[in-house]
């Protein structure tokens, strides 16, 4: 069995030390690098927290939409090709799937950006 605290908890506390204790002491030209480190740790933490669940949901939604099976990468490739061909012009269900999967990726990569969009999207933001 793995030790506690786990990877998520370690990232959370390590990030706090970086931001609260180290960042204020850094010279101006290194502060940006420290903020980048904090940002990268945040993304890693949110991905760990989410696990593979959202990826599986996206895969299922795509399989349903496209009426075919495949890995997530294959389904995305197929979806992209069909959007390009115009198969999904004005298709509300395709737009919904696209919006949901993109919101999910923003939740992991840049959750603060969601605040400007829908309240329902922002509600799930992990800060």
């Amino acid at each position, binding site marked *: 069995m793995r030790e506690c605290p786990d990877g998520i908890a370690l990232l959370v506390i390590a990030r706090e030390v970086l931001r609260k204790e180290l960042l204020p002491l850094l010279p101006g030209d290194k502060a940006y690098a420290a903020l980048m480190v904090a940002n990268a740790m945040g993304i890693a933490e949110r991905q760990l927290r989410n696990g593979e669940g959202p990826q599986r949901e996206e895969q299922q939604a795509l399989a349903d939409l496209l009426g075919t099976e495949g890995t997530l990468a294959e389904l*995305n*490739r197929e979806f992209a090709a069909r*959007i390009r061909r115009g198969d999904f012009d004005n298709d509300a269900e395709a737009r919904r799937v696209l919006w949901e999967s993109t919101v999910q990726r923003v939740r992991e990569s*840049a959750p603060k950006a969601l605040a400007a969009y829908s309240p329902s999207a922002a509600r799930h933001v992990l800060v």
Partner: protein
Amino acid sequence: MREEQRTALEHFLAARAGANEVRIHEARLLSGGAIQENWSLSATVTGGRHEGVLECVLRSDAPSAVAVSHSRAQEFALLQVAFRAGVTVPEPLWLGDASVFGRDFFVMRKAKGTASGYRLVKEPGLGGDREALTERLGEELARLHAIRPPVDGLSFLRTPTLPPALQCVKDSREFLDGHRAAFPALEWGLRWLEQHAPATPALVLTHRDFRTGNYMVDETGLTAVLDWEFAAWSDPLEDLGWFCARCWRFGQFDKEAGGIGSREALFRGYERVSGRRPEREAVSYWEVLAHVRWAVIALQQGERHVSGQEPSLELALTAHVVPELELEVLRMTGGRHA
């Protein structure tokens, strides 16, 4: 900078400046620039028409560069053309090659102030009156857009066979086809761009990276427009759309022109010099294109890290701006489902 580079550079500068001697007393590597390496040089020139202290910037290729960007020689030619057209750019001085510095480079006069977008949106005193600065940037664009093909020295610029908007769609699709992963939301945007592409009546010289972060200001106002490596013959509205695009407002979303001023001020300045009033709706097409194009560039930058070619936290994080760009593309093209 290594000692032999400095010595070779001193001889190069002396020859080009027609000086008896040039002594570099400060050479400082400037931060920023994922594609190029910039050195701030302070030199004492003895003899010739540059006699005295010369403050300049040496711009050379970084170890690896994005395929679509111009060479230093081409960027130097672009600076010369823009300088002669009255655009506020650092005065291009001399072009040098790898035999002097190990990599191709050019030397330009140093502009005062800062280019940092984050500083600009945080420090209201920078850049002087902001509406005046915004208007001035509109004027600069109009001056640039007065340049029409063909121009001596710019024959390396590809003349698009398709209307510029469709050319961008085609180039982006070609990149995505060769990429590891598919990006359906970008495809959605590209499909929309294809279906709504405007005709471009006349090609002009465009900067194609004209945004906050790529011009310098001091306390009084604009001192230089920088980073000409993406310049091309295109639709003039491409530059206006890039400047106004939400992704280039550095968090100041209500200041629609580059996060620093009003769209109205930008358009006013543009109209004063060009005689043409940009139409908001026509510009918004190019704002969609800006998000798609920036997402593609971000993927390319991220790939430099992912491929192992150039490990860099900055490049790695650039790949993570793609989702929020895609979300904005979906919103702008009616793909929102809240």
